[in-house]
């Protein structure tokens, strides 16, 4: 073993300077954070309407009273999130794959897939909810569901699968054509190339944007309340109108945040990781590539 390296006097000086600079930054950051918090806190609590607002929006007794109903509602939101999320992912992938099919035979399928994404990406979710939720039962066809929860879920799947299809399509198109050339040269068919070469690379790249859509879906699951489903938001609304106190809304908001904030963190983490992975090598360093 060679002798251990000892930093020079100059380097020790530099380190002392850096330490001091770091300490100073930390103190300034802490002080400014506290100052902003105090100003905001004092400003709000000194406001003439604050006691009223606190009583109307942050009443602990109202919150605890609304909790059981809101919790039951939140379970419906979570069910919708999980089931619709999985269904939208599967349907979105199918639509994206249909759009990659080559050949005249598949023209109707390609057109159908394109029209599908155009239509459901272009319509406001709430309209799709009304059309499906009130339109389908009005058909009076036997065998079609009439449960507003199922119909609302179906509407969410229709809208979100269109978004997800576009995300998958972008991912598929981001895989370099030379990968397809290599796979086809080895004799793989179009389907084998998609499944074994293109999709594994595409899916990895689109996981962060897909999680973004998942977070939106979790929030939009509350829109099924327009069909009469009692989800967390609807339950809060009912509790609110009982005593003319908005605290249950705050409760519902906190419940959504409890789900969406961790999801957002996971998304950020994954996005940062894939950026790091792609950031290897000089060629990828410049940032603005692709």
């Amino acid at each position, binding site marked *: 073993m060679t002798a251990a390296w000892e930093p020079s006097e100059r380097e020790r000086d530099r380190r002392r300077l850096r330490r001091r600079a770091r300490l100073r930054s930390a103190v300034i950051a802490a002080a400014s954070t506290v100052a902003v918090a105090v100003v905001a806190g004092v400003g709000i609590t000194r406001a003439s309407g604050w006691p009223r607002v606190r009583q109307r929006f942050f009443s602990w007794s109202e919150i605890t009273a609304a909790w059981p109903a809101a919790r039951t509602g939140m379970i419906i939101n979570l069910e919708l999130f999980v089931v619709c999320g999985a269904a939208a992912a599967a349907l979105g992938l199918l639509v994206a794959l249909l759009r990659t099919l080559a050949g005249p035979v598949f023209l109707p399928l390609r057109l159908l897939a394109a029209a599908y994404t155009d239509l459901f990406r272009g319509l406001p979710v709430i309209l799709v909810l009304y059309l499906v939720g009130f339109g389908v039962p009005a058909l009076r066809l036997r065998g079609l569901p009439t449960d507003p929860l199922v119909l609302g879920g179906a509407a969410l799947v229709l809208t979100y699968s269109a978004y997800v299809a576009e995300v998958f399509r972008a991912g598929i198109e981001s895989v370099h054509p*030379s*990968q397809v050339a290599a796979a*086809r040269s080895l004799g793989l068919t179009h389907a084998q190339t998609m499944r074994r070469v293109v999709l594994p690379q595409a899916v990895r790249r689109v996981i962060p944007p897909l999680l973004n859509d998942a977070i939106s879906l979790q929030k939009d699951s509350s829109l099924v309340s327009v069909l009469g489903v009692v989800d967390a938001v609807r339950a809060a609304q009912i509790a609110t109108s009982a005593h003319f106190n908005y605290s249950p809304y705050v409760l519902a908001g906190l419940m959504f945040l409890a789900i969406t904030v961790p999801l957002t963190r996971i998304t950020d983490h994954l996005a940062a990781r894939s950026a790091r992975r792609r950031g290897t090598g000089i060629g990828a360093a410049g940032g603005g590539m692709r």
Partner: protein
Amino acid sequence: MTTGDAVGPGGPGGPAAPVLSVRGLVKLYGNTVVLRDITFEVGPGQAVVLVGGSGSGKSTLLRCLNLLESVDDGEILLAGEEITDPRVNADRIRRRIGVVFQAYNLFPHLTVLQNVTLAPILVHRVPRAAARERARELLGRIGLADKVDVYPDRLSGGQQQRLAIVRALATEPSLLLLDEITSALDPELVGEVLDLVGELKREGMPMVLATHEMAFARDIADEVLVLDGGLIIERGTPQRVLDESRQERTRRFLARIREPGPPGPGHAAGPVT
């Protein structure tokens, strides 16, 4: 050997039947003719080297040969079978032709071993265990036996390109197409890749190569075709074409690509060991 009337379109013909025979091949991009009247043959164990500047049509020709590009006239026969017939299943033809690309085109999401076994298992229905064993054998041969489970981005450029060659060999093709396979490599890594190709040639693998490595072309080629503007402007043995060229354009091209290399018009014009 080079004029191909011996084999009719009917069948594989006699003992010296060509592996590949190209007759009057034409390729258009829109109204631009990128390949015109290309005719040549690759006999068993033979290597045909395509030489020419960028844009001369070498890569397009190679892509036509394995049907990655459609052909606009003429015909290509693989072991006597006309593969330019629109009714031919292109996937079935590509299984019989190995391709190595300039940029390796390895699959980044698969390990070294999986890169090699993908096509044998999926396309040729080789049992998994047998495909793995064969892949390990091939990887051992190029000194990558201890890298089977790493991903290609951990390999050097030379290792990646040798892996790409082995991936093409794993399907036991009857013809190998090599498209400027050393152009993306650092100069000191070129030798190890060319050595492997030379070995394959000695083992009798028929091949068509596009290359700028003239010393290598001299060693390996049975016939050299010089392409310019989509035409074969000169052809013959390496000695005939590379040393005694009668074409001004060929000589100019050769001078251009020899310039950066070490001097010596005879041998060792490229970093071949």
